[in-house]
Structure formats: structure tokens, C-alpha cells
């Protein structure tokens, strides 16, 4: 559980120690941020700047990467381009400067929407199922409880990709290949074990006296669960939801294997954005940068719940 207290050593650390520790943290943060900064900078480079060596730190920013991410283009003769009217918007004028015209939207937006639907859908489902079964495991006498819990955990012990071929064959047979529903079910089944285990810990921490009091006060068990347990489990639910979402959002291997068109998510789509003469790195970087946004927003929104130990101080042990 999160709580306001952390372990303190008896002796206050000296200024030097604190400065050393602080600079280590900053150093670590910088090292982990470099690839992200690199991606974000590349997103605003022109294709030539993106592959120049030595790499350019200072460059003329361009939106060509974003234009190439959202559009498909076709090469035309300069005569044909001159015969057209004035360019339609920024991307069109960038394309024409390279002797191309915008042919239509790319598949990035539909792939991104697939990602949103599949990741959030499976997260909601995994957290909902996880909360209910965690509550059941926490509060009721379930036959073979320990064995069931171990079985649920054991589904996490193998790398998911180990079952890729059976799942591929199964999905093809029952018609779930390349469907959003299929991907939601798949990610839910991977995440639900994590959700059960995480949430069981959180729900175990909530004293059952709360629900008992509610049940004596005239509530059914389900009403007591909704009114008393859920509000106190928000911290755990938020943390679990973020873990589930990050997995489903970033999942690559199954997405490559099981989706090709309709239900393809962004991760398998982004790296294969091809420009003229090979990978279109600014477009790939722009796609990756935008791909980071939902997770950041979701985490920031739930941060309040993550940090708040909601029962802290209210219970007397």
C-alpha cells in the first residue's frame, strides 16, 4: 500500500550524502530520458537530418514527420504538380516540395483507435473481473483457494508468446483472428491474473468489519461491496489499471501475429512506416511520440489515487 510514511534511518543523512543521492537520481533520470528525448527530437526533424551523421542536436524543426505519419503520398512529375491549384494545407505543400502529392490519409489513426479500444477495453475487463474475484478470494471460503490462486499466478510463469501458435490456430478456427474482441479477450486473459493478485492484496487490507457493519445496517453484500469496499480500494484499482493498461498498450508480439488489418494496433504498425528509399524515421518517431500520450495522460489522471493511502489514519489497529 502507499502510505505517507517511509523508513527513516535514525541519523539524518549529511548534506554531502543527500547531494550525492540526489545527483544519482538526476543522472538516472537523464539516462532514461535520453531515448525519449531522441525520439521526440527526431519526430521534428526532416528525413535528411534524421539520418545525418554525426547526429544533429541543432536542426531546423519540420512537421514533415507528422505529415508523413498521417498521410500517404504519390510521386508526380513537376509538370503535373504545377498544373494543380494552390496546395491544400501544410502537408500538401511539404509533399509538393518533394515532387509528391497527398494521396489520402494513412492507417495511423485507425490503428491508434484500435489500440485505444483494445487496451482500455481489456483493462476495464481485467480490472472488473480481477476486483470481483479478488474480493471473492479475500472474503469467502473458496474450496482449493490456495491451489486456484497458484493456478492463476502460474499462467504468468511462461512467456505469453509460448502459446502463440495454439492461440493463433484457435483464433483462426473460431473467427477471432484480426478482431478487436479477440485482442481484448487475449489481453484480458493475460492481465486478469496480475489483477487478481494485486487486488487481493489491497482488498485483504480492508477490514471486513466495514462490510459487516454495512450489512447489519441494511445493505446487501453486493451493495456493501460497492458502497464500502470499492471506494477504499481505489488506490489498488488505480495501480492495477495502470499496470494492465501499460501491458495491453505496448504489447507487440501477439499484435503482430494475430492482427493484420481491421484490428491491427499501433505497435506493429508504427515501425513499418515506409517512406521513399526505406524507413521514414521522422514519421516513425512522430508515431511513437503520439503513442506515448495516452499512457502519460492516464497515469497523471490517476496519480492522485496512486499516491493517496486512503485508509491511512482512519483505522485503529
Amino acid at each position: 500500500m502507499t502510505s505517507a510514511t517511509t523508513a527513516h534511518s535514525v541519523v539524518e543523512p549529511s548534506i554531502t550524502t543527500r547531494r550525492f543521492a540526489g545527483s544519482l537520481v538526476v543522472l538516472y533520470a537523464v539516462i532514461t530520458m535520453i531515448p525519449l528525448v531522441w525520439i521526440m527530437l527526431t519526430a521534428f526533424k526532416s528525413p535528411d537530418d534524421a539520418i545525418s551523421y554525426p547526429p544533429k542536436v541543432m536542426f531546423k524543426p519540420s512537421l514533415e514527420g507528422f505529415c508523413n505519419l498521417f498521410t500517404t503520398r504519390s510521386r508526380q512529375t513537376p509538370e503535373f504538380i504545377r498544373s494543380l491549384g494552390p496546395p491544400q494545407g501544410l502537408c500538401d505543400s511539404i509533399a509538393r516540395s518533394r515532387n509528391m502529392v497527398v494521396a489520402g490519409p494513412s492507417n495511423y489513426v485507425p490503428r491508434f483507435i484500435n489500440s485505444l479500444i483494445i487496451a482500455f477495453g481489456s483493462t476495464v475487463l481485467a480490472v472488473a473481473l480481477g476486483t470481483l474475484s479478488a474480493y471473492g478470494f479475500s472474503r469467502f471460503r473458496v474450496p482449493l483457494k490456495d491451489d486456484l490462486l497458484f493456478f492463476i499466478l502460474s499462467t504468468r510463469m511462461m512467456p505469453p508468446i509460448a502459446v502463440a501458435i495454439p492461440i493463433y490456430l484457435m483464433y483462426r478456427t473460431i473467427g477471432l483472428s484480426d478482431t478487436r474482441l479477440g485482442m481484448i479477450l487475449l489481453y484480458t486473459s493475460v492481465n486478469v491474473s496480475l489483477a487478481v493478485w494485486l487486488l487481493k492484496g489491497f482488498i485483504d487490507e480492508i477490514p471486513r468489519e466495514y462490510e459487516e457493519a454495512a450489512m447489519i445496517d441494511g445493505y446487501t453484500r453486493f451493495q456493501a461491496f460497492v458502497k464500502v469496499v470499492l471506494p477504499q480500494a481505489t488506490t489498488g484499482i488505480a495501480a492495477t489499471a495502470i499496470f494492465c493498461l501499460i501491458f495491453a498498450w505496448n504489447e507487440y508480439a501477439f499484435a503482430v501475429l494475430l492482427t493484420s488489418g481491421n484490428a491491427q494496433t499501433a505497435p506493429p504498425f508504427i515501425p513499418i512506416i515506409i517512406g521513399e528509399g526505406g524507413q521514414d524515421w521522422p514519421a516513425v518517431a512522430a508515431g511513437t511520440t503520439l503513442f506515448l500520450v495516452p499512457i502519460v495522460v492516464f497515469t497523471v489522471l490517476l496519480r492522485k489515487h496512486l499516491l493517496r493511502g486512503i485508509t491511512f489514519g482512519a483505522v485503529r489497529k
Partner: protein
Amino acid sequence: MAEVEINAVSKAFGKTQALSDLSLTIGDGEFVALLGPTGAGKTTALRLIAGLEQPDSGSIRIDGRDVTGDAPADRDVAFVFQQYSLYPHLTVFENMAFALRAPTRRVPEADIRVKVQEVARLLHIETKLDNKATQLSGGQMQRVAIGRALVRSPSIYLMDEPLSSLDAKLRGELRLELKRIQVDLGATILYVTHDQTEAMTMASRIGVLEGGRLMQIGSPREIYENPINAHVAARLGQPTINLLPAALFGGAPAGAETIGARTEHLTIARGGGDVSATVKRVEHLGDQSHLHLDVAGRPVVTLADPETGFGAGDVVSLRLNKPLFFDARGWRVAA
């Protein structure tokens, strides 16, 4: 308010027999305390009445109706827990209104407001209604916990050591308030405690539980003066009753193996008693002193007037004054 009748109820958890054949009737408007050590089955008895546990055998009737198989919500009882009593995510007002807002009860919001404020005044927490439950002191939390129950008018209030987590001063204050409220409302209360003072001062009847069995039930005076066995005798009285071999003193009735001597059964003098004893230690409590004596190698604790001026090492004499007698198995033997 109503009469609650517990009839031959037994309950085991695995191999542990928590309650054996408990029969107890709590009259309308009566304050009954169940007194016993930890693990005696006191809390189990409350939970069975509340419906949080199902008895293995026996039945429970509330107001003449058999509720043995009913869900807690259908029994019309209120429960005050020893701890974890308040919902941390709600305000004091919301905590107290919680029961009235239950979907099955459908109390109009205006009535809820009136009722909560009335009870808050009774408990002196009317200025705290908008606080979060987590912003209260221990004593205030416990008042709110009691208030949560008082907003309802259930058949019976079940209270599980509601004062035990408080400090001594608050406990004393709330004890008086609780009794006053009970008398004012004419409430039926079953109160579980291991604190003999609470049981003695508040209850009209005390039931002494030991190892899941109801040893004796009666008025506080009856339980104190006429305990049926040594267990019950040891439950009440401060300092605890001294149990001594009957052979040490003369004049025990036939069959008596043990003499039970409370402070008032012992007369201490500087000489001329039945048995001589050595003062080992004197604890000064202010208005009186605890005298730790050694009687033929057995410890005896009794009260003494500080004026008497006994000190460690003094040899005194003891005289028994209508003590209690128990047989080899601890049962009372008539004097």
C-alpha cells in the same frame, strides 16, 4: 426495542468450540453485559445474533420472530464494533447517515438530517459533522461509531467492547454517557466487555462467559456476592479474589478445598488473628494501598487503609470474615 431470545446456540470454528449451548434472554429495554476473557466466545455471541455467523445448532428469536436463518440486514439489529468502525472515505455526517440511507430503508433525506443532528447533539459531536472521519480524535471516532448505531431504532444494540480502544479517562466519561443514553432511550443493549467496571456500572444483568459457556447470569451484585464457581468469582473484584487452600484456615465446611477471600473477607491486624502473614510489598494508590502478603508461601493481595502504616517485612495476622468456599473442581460450597 424488543426482547431477544437465544436458545441453546452452539458454534464451532474448525476444532475450536467457540460457544456451547448458550441460552440467554435479553428483556425489552434491558442492558445485559457479557463479561469474559479473550476467547470466551463473547464476540461470537454478538456475531451470531447479528447474523454475521450462522449457529451450528440452536435458534435466535428477536421480538418473537425466529431470525436464525435471516441475513444481517433483515434482523433489525445495530452493531458497534470495537474498531474499524468508521468509513474513512465519508464525512462524519455521511457515516452516521449511512444506515438510514440503506436502499431498503428509504428514509427521506430531510428526516435523516434531523435524526443525525439529534444524535450528534446527544453525543456532543454536532460541530464535527462535516469533518472527514479521519480527522477525529479517538474519543470522537468512538462517539461517531456509537452514533451510527443510535440513529436507528433497532430491536437491539449489540456492542463489542466499544470503549476498549480509548484511554481510561475517556472510557470513564463515555461509560457514563452511554448509560445515560440507554436509560433515556429505553434501549435494549447487549454489551460485550472484558472490563469488570464497565459491566458492573452499566449492566442490569451480567453474564459471565468462560470457554464458550455461560457460567452464570444475574445482577452485578448477585454475581459479585454469590458467584457459583471460582471462575466467576475471579472475574469481579479489584484486587482479584485470593484463592487459598482451605487447610490453611480452620472452619471450612465439608467438601471445601479452596477458600475465596476478597478484600472485604479479610481483616488484618498487628496480632491475634487466625493466621499470620508477612507483608512483602505495599503499593500506595493514594486513597488506599495494595498489600501484598505471604501466607504460608502463598501470595495474597488485599486493600488496606494507608493510615495503618504497614511496611515490607511486617508480620501481621489475618482473620477471615464470611469468605467463599469452593470444592475441588471450583464449584461453590455453601458456608
